[in-house]
């Protein structure tokens, strides 16, 4: 890839909060026009990475270029070319939808002659034209998120950052947000960088990077990542899970873990393996399920845990990073 077609270039980026290293050396490139997803549990370092790319946090080490500009040395140039939709709402609830957009256009110095037309266009695109004169306080969660997305690309940024754009929304609203994002990419020729911890949503991305404990553990198209797993996931419930895990290791040379209450392992041609399993395991099996690899499995095959387990395990690293972010750098 030549430099001009790269929207984002990241080289060994690191960020520490006091003694905790939240981002531990990530490197990747995003081509112009791509939808690039960052996938990982809460506390994996996704938001910290996004904050560094958006010039909101200073990297401890490493470098990053966004829209061709260095995020530390050319902060203002980066800011001119990016749009941001944060995880937490950042609208002024006391102002109308239109006033919020107008304020944004003024802060970004958009040519006043173009502002009314552009505002009409973005409001139409997210389906909020009719509510443009209503105060944002009266909006539902989904409407607010759409307005934030509209505001994020109001100034025609080259890269739009979306940090958990669908978090806290109901499934129906989530899918409508995704249609708007797809439409946006098609019409505005924009590069989209997003984070999510919903596996199903990561499938919409052209490429995804899986992040865990501050590092990228895998990076490819969703299809390629799933193909890499190359095996089916088998989940069994047994009378004695520990004995089953030992038996799987001893007799079949398979590494199994307990996740979400079931013994889980990966094996090629899972359906054909099941009869052998029953015949040779030597531990009573209560139920079996075999499934094709999903992104969840990709995550599991790289980290040894599911994304939900990773979040629930009360990971000390993640919690400490989150505390640091809440008390210090994040706001």
């Amino acid at each position, binding site marked *: 890839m030549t430099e001009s077609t790269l929207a984002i270039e990241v080289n060994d980026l690191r960020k520490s909060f006091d003694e905790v290293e939240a981002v531990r050396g990530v490197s990747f490139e995003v081509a112009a026009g791509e939808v690039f997803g960052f996938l990982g549990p809460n506390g994996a370092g996704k938001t910290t990475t996004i904050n560094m790319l*958006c*010039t*909101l*946090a*200073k990297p401890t080490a490493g470098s990053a270029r966004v829209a061709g500009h260095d995020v530390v040395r050319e902060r*203002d*140039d980066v*800011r*001119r*070319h990016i749009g*941001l939709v*944060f995880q*937490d*709402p*950042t*609208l*002024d*609830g*006391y*102002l109308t939808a239109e*006033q919020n957009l*107008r*304020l*944004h*256009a*003024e*802060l*970004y*110095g*958009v*040519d006043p002659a*173009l*502002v009314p*037309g*552009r505002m009409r*266009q973005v409001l*139409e*695109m997210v*389906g909020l034209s009719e509510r443009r004169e209503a105060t944002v306080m009266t909006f*539902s969660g*989904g*409407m607010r998120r759409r307005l934030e997305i509209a505001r994020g690309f*109001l*100034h*025609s*940024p080259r890269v739009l950052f979306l940090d958990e754009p669908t978090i806290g929304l109901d499934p*129906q*609203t989530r899918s*409508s947000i995704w*249609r*708007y994002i797809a*439409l946006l990419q*098609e*019409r*505005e020729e924009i590069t989209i960088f997003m984070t999510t911890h919903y596996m199903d949503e990561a499938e919409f991305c052209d490429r995804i990077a899986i992040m865990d404990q501050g590092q990228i553990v895998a990076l490819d198209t969703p299809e390629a990542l799933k193909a890499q797993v190359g095996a089916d996931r088998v989940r069994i419930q047994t009378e004695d899970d520990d004995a089953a895990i030992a038996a799987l290791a001893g007799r079949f040379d398979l590494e199994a873990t307990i996740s979400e209450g079931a013994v889980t392992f990966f094996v090629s041609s899972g359906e054909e393996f099941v009869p052998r399993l029953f015949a040779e395991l030597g531990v009573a099996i209560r139920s079996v399920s075999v499934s094709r690899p999903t992104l969840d499995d990709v995550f599991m095959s790289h980290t040894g845990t599911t994304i939900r387990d990773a979040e629930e395990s009360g990971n000390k690293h993640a919690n400490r990073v989150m505390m640091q972010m809440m008390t*210090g*750098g994040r*706001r």
Partner: protein
Amino acid sequence: MSVTEQALPATGAMTEVIRVRVPPRSWRSELRAMKIVWRRELIRFRNDRIRIVTALVQPLLFLFVLGSGLQQLSSASTDGVDLKTFIYPGILCIAVMFTAMFSAASIVWDREFGFMREMLVAPIRRSSIVIGKCLGGATVASFQGVILLCLAWAVHVPYSVTLVLGILAIQLLLAFSITAFGVMVAVRIKQMTAFMGVMQMVVMPMFFISGALFPVANLPGWLAFLNRIDPLTYAVDPMRRLVFSHLDLSAAARRTLDPGVTWWGWHVPALLEAAVVLALGLAMLGIAIWEFNASE
């Protein structure tokens, strides 16, 4: 109507995408940013009628309840001047002060409700945000002052062009300095309750010590000292001189009620007093900007 079920616009049927661009940073873009931050304060003030009314309660209580109530005790020593007339200049100042503090508090709100981030990531200097905020707070507070200015007739102060313009100028100056002070505090404090606590702790003593309710001559030594280091003194005193210069008073009354601030026996000129308020305001604005730049 279900919000989520709105039809998506057909891609082909829509007109050409309007492309805008964000220009490199310049002093013009900074001015635009300052102006919109200023305007936002005005829009929010206009929409918030409850705040306009509640901010009036305290000054009106002081002026009419305290003023009328204590009148019986004070009439012997005020040489026939209504106590309300005497404290009116002080009330003009504190009305502005309370509102300005509240405007500064919006920085804490903005951070709590996330809007601050929208401003922080814009390609503008942080100082533009702070200056816009201070000017916005000053303007809003002066509006509040104007409402009290309308009550001059009720306390026997005759209107004149110089009186109105002079009062407006002092109010604007004071409102700016107080907002700068509030913003300076607000940048450091992350919770609204804590901010309000600090403000209560600072504002009420400043108000009581300033001489808004008493003449500043012949005070006990400790109070005279506190009074002279209270910044609000230097807004109340010129305000009182201005109002009293438009009244028809006996020389004795003028001596007792409007003695003027002295430094070691020297009468401080009103312009110097105004300069003190301005200098303090600018200094606090500078500190606020510096702090704001330093916070990540």
